[in-house]
């Protein structure tokens, strides 16, 4: 598993439930004392063990932990890298949904060895109804994506119902019902608000 993924889970547990929770999960899952490095690769089994340990430690279903992870990835205040990178995908939530099929390629543009699940958006009968199919990701990835989509809808100021609609062999289905694309003001997005390349660095403490 890419270190970016493991590191995200580490930061999620630490920021949301405190360093003590992360330390207990790391111990239970056999993660080294330094935690994960974002730019290295780790055994897939370690990610699974960490998620099981987190679910046990928090006494919550693994699916709920994964969904909270998805929400955290977008809405946690801080460097907002992921939120910003996703916002580049479209001017409104519907536009963003249409850009999701490009997401694995966008991910690879940024981090060539990052494997993201294949995403397929299908419009359903009735206005604003979509199904998103995630294929080829680790089990439970659909819950993370559902959490991210909920947070992105908030970010765009859209009112949308997002639900994990079940998994079949190698596929997870997420149903999306976009009720109002301009429900609230949403968070502003400035194309040029990212790190200034002229300065050549990101602010200190920008990493999660």
């Amino acid at each position, binding site marked *: 598993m890419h270190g970016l993924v493991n590191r995200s889970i580490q930061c999620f547990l630490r920021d949301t439930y405190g360093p003590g929770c992360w330390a207990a999960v790391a111990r239970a899952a056999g993660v080294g004392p330094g935690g994960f490095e974002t730019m290295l690769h780790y055994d897939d089994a370690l990610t699974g063990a960490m998620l099981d340990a987190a679910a046990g430690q928090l006494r919550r279903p693994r699916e709920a932990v994964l969904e909270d992870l998805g929400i955290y990835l977008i809405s946690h205040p801080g460097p907002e890298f992921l939120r*910003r990178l996703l916002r*580049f995908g479209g001017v409104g939530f519907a536009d963003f949904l249409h850009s999701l099929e490009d997401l694995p390629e966008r991910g690879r543009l940024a981090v060539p060895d990052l494997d993201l699940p294949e995403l397929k958006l299908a419009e359903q009968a009735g206005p604003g109804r979509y199904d998103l199919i995630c294929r080829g990701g680790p089990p439970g990835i659909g819950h993370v994506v559902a959490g991210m989509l909920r947070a992105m809808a908030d970010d765009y100021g859209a009112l949308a119902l997002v639900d994990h609609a079940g998994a079949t062999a190698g596929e997870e289905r997420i149903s999306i019902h976009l009720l109002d694309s301009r429900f609230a003001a949403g968070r502003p997005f400035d194309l*040029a608000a990212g790190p200034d*390349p002229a300065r050549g660095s*990101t602010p200190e403490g920008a990493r999660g």
Partner: protein
Amino acid sequence: MTAAGGFAVGMAALDRLMPMHLCLSGTGAVLSAGPTLAKIAGAPLAGGAFFDLFEIRQPGGIATPGDLARRAGARLYLNLRAVPETGLRGLAMPLQGGGPEGGGQENGGLILNLSFGIDLAQAVRDHALTDTDFAATDLAVELLYLVEAKSAVMAELRDLNRRLQGARIAAEEQAQTDTLTGLYNRRAMDRIMAEVAAKATPFGLMHVDLDYFKQVNDTLGHAAGDHVLREVARALRAETRTGDMLARVGGDEFVIMFPGLTDPAAMEVIARRMIDRLSRPIPYRDRDCSISASIGMTASTLYDAPDPDRMLADADRALYVAKRGGRAGVAMHRPKARGG
């Protein structure tokens, strides 16, 4: 009208298709300008003269509408005179007359399509551009995404490199230290002696060997022996200066290098003081451990070309001379002849 003869496109459609277009009359007057171009100009462009508003940097020698028409199809590097810091690139092509009569006939006018140059990110920052300022087909926003993603990834890699560098330094330091006493180990000593010898700094060298240490180990056990070795290291540190290099090179053997100290008499004073101190009983639990030490010495000034290995061998030989003279002895290496 046929495809071969050309199409007419309404201005609103043109603004969406090419938000940075310019239409010029045959005399170089700006007939219309796309909304993004007008936004970065900060003032209306229509009605102005193209060459008053824009400067064509490359190719050189384009100063009239006629020059521009002759370079139709070539890539142009240009900028607005009002905002020279924002580089633009563009392409000019001849316009055809509109309406049924003019269809297919060039009317002397030009259409230019412009885009930002390689400094796109800076232009977006300078002019507060948004997604809607670009044509939906334009990859400009993807380029911005890439710039941002690349910066984030580079920052991660920089952090990773910094942490790995720190870990490497820590590992190297650990690998140079004798974990029991905190003194340098043999490897570190070899390296430091080679460095000092290469710098031609004169230095004295002592080889310290503990007496009766084996008895402490045998009668009181290894824990007592380890305790004694730690106390010896502490004593040797106390009797040396900050810049002197202390290494534990064997079970009960130590090497000390004294940069800048080569006088045999002064070295002997230090050696005697060390032996006196090491001869005091070292308390361990309810017992006293009694040891002593013998010291062989040499100095770099005794050699024409001081070689660390040879000096260590000579200090070792002097140590045996000291031991032969009874325990708790000190001996200085005596070269057979100067430089020998």
